[in-house]
Every structure is written in C-alpha cells, then in structure tokens.
C-alpha cells in the first residue's frame, strides 16, 4: 500500500477515536452541573468540590498511594536483582526456575493470582500466625510480586543492550564487584528502574481484582471503592475523579516523554 493511502489513514483515525472518544465524553460530563448524567445543565466544577468532601474516596486514594509506593519500591529492589542475575550470571542453579517464576506473574490471570495468594495468606496464618488478617501488608505483598516481574523484564532488557565489556574493563582495572555495580551498572540501568517503578506503581494503583481478594476490612483501595460505586451506573463524582486521574497520568506521561526526547537530542549533540 502507498505511503499514505487515505483508507489506511481513515482506519487508523477510527482506531484512535475508539480509544479516546469515551474518555473525552467522560471528561466533558464531569463538568456537567446536573446530577442526571443524561441532561446537560451547563458547566460547573461542583463535583470536584464534592469529591474532596467524600471521606471514603479520599481515604481509599490515600491507601492506594501507600500500597503503590511500597509495592513499587519492593518491586524495583527485587526486580533489579532478578534482572541483573538473569542478564549477567551465565549459569547458576535455579536459573530456569527464577526465569519462569519471574515471567509467569505477568501473564497469570488476575483472578487466579488473587485467589491463590489469599489461600496462601490464610494457610500461613493458620500455621504460623502471620499475616494476622488481611490489610495493607497483604495487598503490598501481592502487588510487589507482580511488580518485581515487570521490573525484572525491563531491567533485563536494558542490561542486554548494554555492553558488558565496560564492566569487564572496570574489573580488569581492579574494581571490585559491589563497586562496579553501583558505579557503572546502576547508573546505566537507572532509566529502566525508574520506568519500572512507574509501571509498577500504575499497575498497583489500577488493580481491582487482586486487591479485592487480599484486602481486609478498612483497607479498601481506590479501585475497590470505584468499582462498588460504578456497578450501580455512572455518577458525576466518579467522572470528576476519573478526570483528575487521567489528567495526572497524561501530564506525567507527556513530561516523561519530553524529558526522554530532550535527553536523546542532547546525546546526539554530544556525539557530533
């Protein structure tokens, strides 16, 4: 097909429309002053004000932020160790096992992950008394487990692009292993670790299914509260909340992209 066949362009535009029109409609209706979602009664920001008054939603958002932060942080520590081991250690006992366990959480159906972790937590509690009940800790453990899998993939990818001879040169010049890692390897894979942290945080902040299985009373995350509300239909408050989340994510992604581009251009300038 030609470079810009009009039919292909039309079909691509149609695809983008499918992705964006529902979100745009939702954003527009979040500024509707009527409580009835069908009737347009003029522009208003009152639902944003009511959102901040809604203690349940604010508490849930706070829990989700905490869970996202801690699970992503545990995720990058363990994920970096896994990614490093898989990319740099040639052969070791358990490599196949580690490789399998580190990639499987990514493709595991969420209902299966959630159910299996809950049953584990209950069995552990019966056996050794830990974890006592379900709450923040169990959600963080569950999210950290899939977080480290995603981070491991990103870090491993970055390490396999990066020339191992630089690390070897440092070794030949007498540098020792922890030093080589912190002085050379870590700065190189830092963008991958940051990207992995953000990805893990986003996935945690978005997760409904796994958190529903492993949360306890008083530890409802934001998606759990949103889900219980939207089951009954569309509400202007959730439209407003969704608009805020979409806006924050959009600003973050665009800023990250802009920084990455700037970085790339600067490197090109240096190479000239």
């Amino acid at each position: 097909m030609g470079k810009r066949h009009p039919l292909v362009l039309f079909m691509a535009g149609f695809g983008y429309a499918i992705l964006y029109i529902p979100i745009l409609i939702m954003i527009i209706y979040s500024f509707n002053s009527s409580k009835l979602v069908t009737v347009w009664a003029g522009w208003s920001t009152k639902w944003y004000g009511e959102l901040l008054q809604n203690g349940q939603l604010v508490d849930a958002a706070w829990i989700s932020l905490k869970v996202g932060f801690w699970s992503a942080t545990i995720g990058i520590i363990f994920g970096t160790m896994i990614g490093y081991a898989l990319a740099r250690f040639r052969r070791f006992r358990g490599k196949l096992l580690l490789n399998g366990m580190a990639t499987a959480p990514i493709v595991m159906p969420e209902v299966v992950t959630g159910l299996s972790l809950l049953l584990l937590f209950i069995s552990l509690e019966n056996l050794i008394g830990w974890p006592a009940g379900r709450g923040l800790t169990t959600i963080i453990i569950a999210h950290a487990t899939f977080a480290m899998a995603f981070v491991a993939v990103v870090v491993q990818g970055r390490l396999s692009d990066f020339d191992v001879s630089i690390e070897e040169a440092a070794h030949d010049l007498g540098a020792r292993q922890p030093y080589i890692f912190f002085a050379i390897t870590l700065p190189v894979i830092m963008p991958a670790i940051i990207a992995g942290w953000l990805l893990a945080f986003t996935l945690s902040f978005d997760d409904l299914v796994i958190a529903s299985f492993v949360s306890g009373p008083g530890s409802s995350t934001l998606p759990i509260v949103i889900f219980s509300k939207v089951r009954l239909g569309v509400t202007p408050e959730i439209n407003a909340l969704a608009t805020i989340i979409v806006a924050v994510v959009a600003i973050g992604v665009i800023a990250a992209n802009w920084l990455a581009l700037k970085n790339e251009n600067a490197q090109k300038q240096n190479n000239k």
Partner: protein
Amino acid sequence: MGFQSLKRYLVIIPPILWLGLFFLIPFFVVLQVSLSDPALTRPPFTSIFTWEGWWPSSFTGDLENYEFLLSDSLYVNSYLNSLKIAAIGSFVCLLIGYPIAYVIARADANLRNTLLLLVILPFWTSSLLRVYALIGMYSPNGFINSTLSWFGIIDTPLQLMQTDFAIYSGIVITYLPLMILPLYAALEKLDGDLVEAASDLGATPLATFWRVTLPLSISGIVAGYLLVFIPSVGEFVIPALLGGPDQLMIGKTLWTEFFNNRDWPVASSVAMVMLAFLVIPMMFLRNTQRAGSA
C-alpha cells in the same frame, strides 16, 4: 570462585525465596483446596490431610469438584464462551490495531513519536476507568442513545449494554495498546525497499500488502494476538461492568463462586482448570518473545 559464588547467591536467593513463597507455593495451596470439600468452618473448606506431628498420616482429597465442573453446564459454557470472546476480541483488536501500527511505522520521526505517545497514554491510565467510560457511552441514557434520540433517529433506547458488542468494545479499549506495540515493532523493522520493489515489479498495493507486508509482520501479529488473548480469557472487570447474564466468562464465574456462593473448593478447581487452558498459549507467547529477542 567460592567467595564469588557466595556473593552471587546473595543476589539470587532473596528473589527466589520471595517468588517461591508468594507465587509458586500458592498454586499448591489452590490445588490442595480444589481437592477438598466445602465446610461450615473458617476457612470454609476441609483439610485433605490428617497431620501426625510434621507428617501427613492420611489423605482424603478427591476429584469431586472437578466432576462437578463437568456436570454443570454453567462452568463448561463459561470456559467455552471465554475462549470464544477472547479469540474474537483479540481478532477485532488486530483489525483495528494493524492500520494504526502501519501508519505509525510509516510516519516521519516527529509525528511518529506523537502517534506512539497517543497509543501509550491510554495504556497508563486505569483500565477500570476506561471500561467505566464505556458505560457512559452505552447505557440506555448514555451518550450514544441520548444523541440518537435528540436527533430523532430512535424512539426507544438501543440495547448496547449487556451485549457481546459491549464486551468486545471493552476488550478493545482495554487491550488495544498491547496489540499495537508489538505490531509496530515488527512493521518498523520491515525493510521499505521490499515494499518498493514489489510495487516496482507491478504488484498492486493490495497484493504487496498480502504477499510482502503481512507475512513479514507475522511475528508482531502472533505476539500481539497472544498478549490480548491471554488476559482476555480470565477477564473479570469487562464482563462484570459491561456484560449481562448471557455474557458468561470464567473470570466472573470464579469471582461469583468465591465471593457470593463462598464455595472456595469449587472456585479453586475453576482456577486450576483455567490455568490448564492457558498453559499452552503462555508457552507459545514465551517462545515467540524469545525468538523475537534472539
């Protein structure tokens, strides 16, 4: 070498312990519960082992729950319908995603970056909220119905929610980026000279597409298809929010079994059978990704 390998094990062992405890062992717990019977205790299932100190002295597990899954058409239909919906939904994603990936791969550098960003952006926003946004489009008093009736095109609202169409829309809005990215990666690598050569030799654009572009992007098609298919099979949010009683899907059936009926042993056996269904596509995905990276 001894000291060196000791340091290595400091890196390897913590993640192996974590994943072993929180990922591998849980499956054996699910397997064990799936062989037990429901009970009015906490937790609500019987133990299949009788313990004598640290050693199990008797085993009372059976396959009753699996026999029950086979005997009740609800479960068989849920599995078959999930596979059908995931297969068709992934194909719809392929049809919608391919032109997008093609246009991105052919765009010049600046535009390409923007177009890619527009694909990645929805992927970073909550999928729960994207599915929720579809309710605002499709519900009887939603955007589509109120617009159509405002123009006088319809008198009674169209039934858009609780249909297969709503489910497929949900799969597209949730997973389309996962389809586009591997397609784009495959199409970007494709040598433009080959396409040019084909048309220089007199092939029509359609023939060039069928015989050059499509076969050369097959790795991206397979990877994208599996990346959408696998999570779609076990999907819960989409059938729960957009589907009705006719849109049976196994993820939702498991959820109901666990949270509403509180039959944990049956829910566990549903999970084990779901895994058995997904092992083959998962292995297949692993192999295509390994082939792609090599």
